[in-house]
């Protein structure tokens, strides 16, 4: 049984390579059938905001990529409720909102955690 991995993505989408790197880890893990989870925390929740235009800053469309998670076998996608509320964002359909206690238990449940 392979070890389970939780990736915590906490950087805004266009502020540097972190958001993309987190997604790449998750997709690669999914391709290898790893039990994998993805949590958006802090500015990472901005990745979930609708109607962003990656082309305006000559980037690849991260939002479109995130829609493919299910096809890559990644069904455990979460967003921090506190981070969403703090930024005035409504919980997106693509990620399950979790409170602090639940996130604490989530981190506990995985064998390994990578925070980017």
């Amino acid at each position: 049984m392979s070890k389970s991995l939780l990736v915590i993505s906490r950087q805004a989408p266009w502020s540097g390579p972190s958001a993309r790197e987190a997604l790449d880890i998750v997709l690669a893990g999914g391709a290898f059938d790893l039990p994998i989870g993805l949590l958006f925390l802090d500015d990472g929740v901005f990745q979930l905001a609708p109607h962003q235009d990656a082309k305006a800053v000559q980037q690849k469309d991260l939002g479109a990529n995130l829609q493919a998670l299910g096809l890559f076998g990644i069904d455990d996608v979460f967003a921090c409720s506190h981070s969403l509320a703090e930024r005035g964002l409504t919980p997106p359909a693509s990620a399950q909102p979790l409170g602090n206690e639940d996130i604490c238990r989530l981190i506990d449940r995985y064998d390994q955690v990578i925070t980017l």
Partner: protein
Amino acid sequence: MNTLTVGARALELDKDGYLVDLNDWSDEVAQALAVAETLELTPDHWEILRLLRQFYAEFQLSPATRPLIKYTALKLGPEKGNSLHLNKLFNGTPAKLAAKLAGLPRPTNCL
């Protein structure tokens, strides 16, 4: 630099033979790419190539094998969305070969 000559045009390819520019793709280009791979395109092949173009338009990603199978099953039904059918069409490496013929970048999460 690798190039693929289609009619009067010389199209740029990367070192693995994938189109550098997604927009260079056309039916003729797919045909030429298939010839380079000694593959004869049947309607079953075309169906998958168009599906891959659609996948890329939707997700801006080249799928690895598993997502390709899942997506094909979703769009064309399980009798086409399975590894047997796709392996048979694309010489056992559907994600890599089909992406190449469909003019997509090499799937990054795929060995």
